[in-house]
């Protein structure tokens, strides 16, 4: 094999490798299409969710202990308001990395979420949100407004939030904040 022929083969191999990378890795990454199925690529919205992200304002306990502080975090993209609300609450109630401190008791999970035509979101949380709560008016206000603000500050379609616990309406979480009706966004509890 002459050196010229060897160089030609090497160049062709490189071009084929580049084309293969472009076809199977580069383009799907740029366009967010799934790598495995060309059929799925026809419906980009349905399968794009796992990898697309939005930036959301999430809320954690401020250093002064009596307010919340807003932090921008990447949250998975959700198709539609309800799905996006679930993603936001999922990210909000997940234990944060230090030094962030969450007002949501550890172990709390999202059971269900639905939004009325009026714009009231009903967030059904597991019983850990009451059982694991340490009480006190301030603590309870921060817990409640963490959830309320997480939805109302990020989703314009949500105007009010009512918390449910284990599928049921509750008067309060720990004896203080009235949860019998949807609460509107309240940024006076945010620094």
């Amino acid at each position, binding site marked *: 094999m002459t050196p010229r022929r060897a160089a030609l083969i090497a160049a062709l191999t490189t071009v084929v490798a580049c084309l293969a990378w472009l076809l199977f890795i580069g383009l799907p990454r740029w366009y967010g299409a799934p790598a495995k199925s060309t059929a799925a690529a026809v419906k980009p919205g349905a399968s794009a969710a796992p990898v697309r992200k939005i930036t959301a304002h999430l809320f954690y*306990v401020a250093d002064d202990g009596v307010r919340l502080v807003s932090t921008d975090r990447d949250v998975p993209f959700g198709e539609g308001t309800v799905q996006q609300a679930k993603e936001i609450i999922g990210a909000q109630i997940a234990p944060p990395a230090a030094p962030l401190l969450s007002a949501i008791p550890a172990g709390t999970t999202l059971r269900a979420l639905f939004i009325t035509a009026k714009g009231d979101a009903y967030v059904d949380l597991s019983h850990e949100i009451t059982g694991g709560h340490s009480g*006190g008016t301030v603590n309870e206000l921060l817990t409640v407004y963490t959830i309320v603000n997480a939805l109302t500050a990020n989703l314009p379609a949500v105007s009010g939030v009512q918390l449910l616990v284990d599928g049921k309406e509750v008067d309060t979480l720990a004896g203080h904040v009235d949860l019998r009706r949807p609460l509107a966004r309240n940024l006076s509890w945010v620094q």
Partner: protein
Amino acid sequence: MNARSLSLFSATIAVGVFVLTRSLASQAPPSSQTLTLLARDGRHPIPISAVNDQEFVALDDLGAAFQLAVREEAGAITVTYKGKTIVVTPDQALASVSGRLVSLPAPPVHAGRRWLVPVEFISRALAPIYDVRLDLRKASHLLIVGDLRVPRLTAKYEAVGSGARLTIDAAPRATSTVQQEGERLTIKFDADALDAPNPLLPPQPAPAIVQAVRVAEPSTVTVDLGPRFAAFRASTQPVDAAMRLVIDFVAPQTTTEAPGAPSAPATATAPPELPPAFAQPISAIRTVAIDAGHGGDDEGVKGAGGTKEKDLTLTVARQLKAAIESRLGIRVLLTRDDDRAVGLDDRTALANNNKADLFISLHANASLRPSVTGAMIFSAGFPPDAEQQARAALAPEPLPTFGGGLRDIELVPWDMAQFRHLEQSVAFATILEQQMHDKVPLGSRPTDQAPLRILESANMPAVLIEMGFLTNPEQEKALAGSGFQNAFTQAVFESVIKFRDHLGMVASR
């Protein structure tokens, strides 16, 4: 008159006679006392014999009253009721009740041809085997048969400043209504009869606000008013197993001079013995409701040192009650006076039903940051559209009246009752902040508004005070100590005075 009416009439007469008998009995010598058996169908006196300071009743009399078979055999007396037996022996202070031994205060006594047993035989031996409930009230010589409501009344009368206070405890709890009929108050208890001495209180020396308190009908107490009576205010509150009725009597105000009028002699001014607080015009605050947060199974916040919010709030609530009542003469209601769970609605209901003029809910705070300290004062917070909702909800509604026609009735939605008092609640919170400023540590945001469940239903100015953070170890120690509690009590006490003055100024505008 049908049979039911006749029965009701005869029962009423019978119970009336019972009250009369008790009235007479209280004046009769002990030897002629009777045990009054009170049942749905009337009353039946059972003679009591006193032997060695012990009261006895004849088994024959009990047998006739309760359909008992009494027979004496083999040195023992056997009492039988529907196949169940009680056996007593003459020399033993014991009874065998269906094979189970119970003690008696004395052995049976043979009197002529009759056997006498201690009256306790009824409650200890007969009651366990009898079909119907037997309630022996030994002190009042009363035996209640069946589920009659016969509350025991205990009364106390005391002077409070220039006025007076009558307190009547009804146990078991019985509600009552108080009405003024001329120079007499009538207190009607929701009961079948009353277990009370007659008169309920000894006559008061003249000139008095209250002259006499008597049991007048089966379930009615009358209060004869004296010349110094001007007005009264009644309230009820559950206290342990009793329902407490408190009637505050107000004496007439001393007339104040008009500006420019000739000086009156010194003797025409307020009596010198009256404490200063009562020499002033009647306060705009007559009743304060103090709510000790949490209680019972709901401990609230628990500090690392073991201090429980429910205990702290109760201690401070009691201290505040004592200070305000004794030094200001303002009546104070506690939403709980012991360690028990009370629903949030029940707490505000107590304040609303008793027409309290101020509501103070006491709590202790918690933060996830242990460094946080300081007291916080909350008033209620309503959503921005609440004003519109409240206006619509609070609009008077014409409702039909008994005599025909319509009358505007103002219906207040329970969870919006606080709305129209919000301005005064915020004013009181501000006064509290000012008075607490140099007495107790305040938080970084001392006053705030929030949608707090306990405040929203209060139909009077209302605040919730978080006294400090139990999650801060140093503050936990301070909160549990008398130094903080005294300073806090003083600050709230002075705030109540300032708020009273503030209301007076608002009213005079």
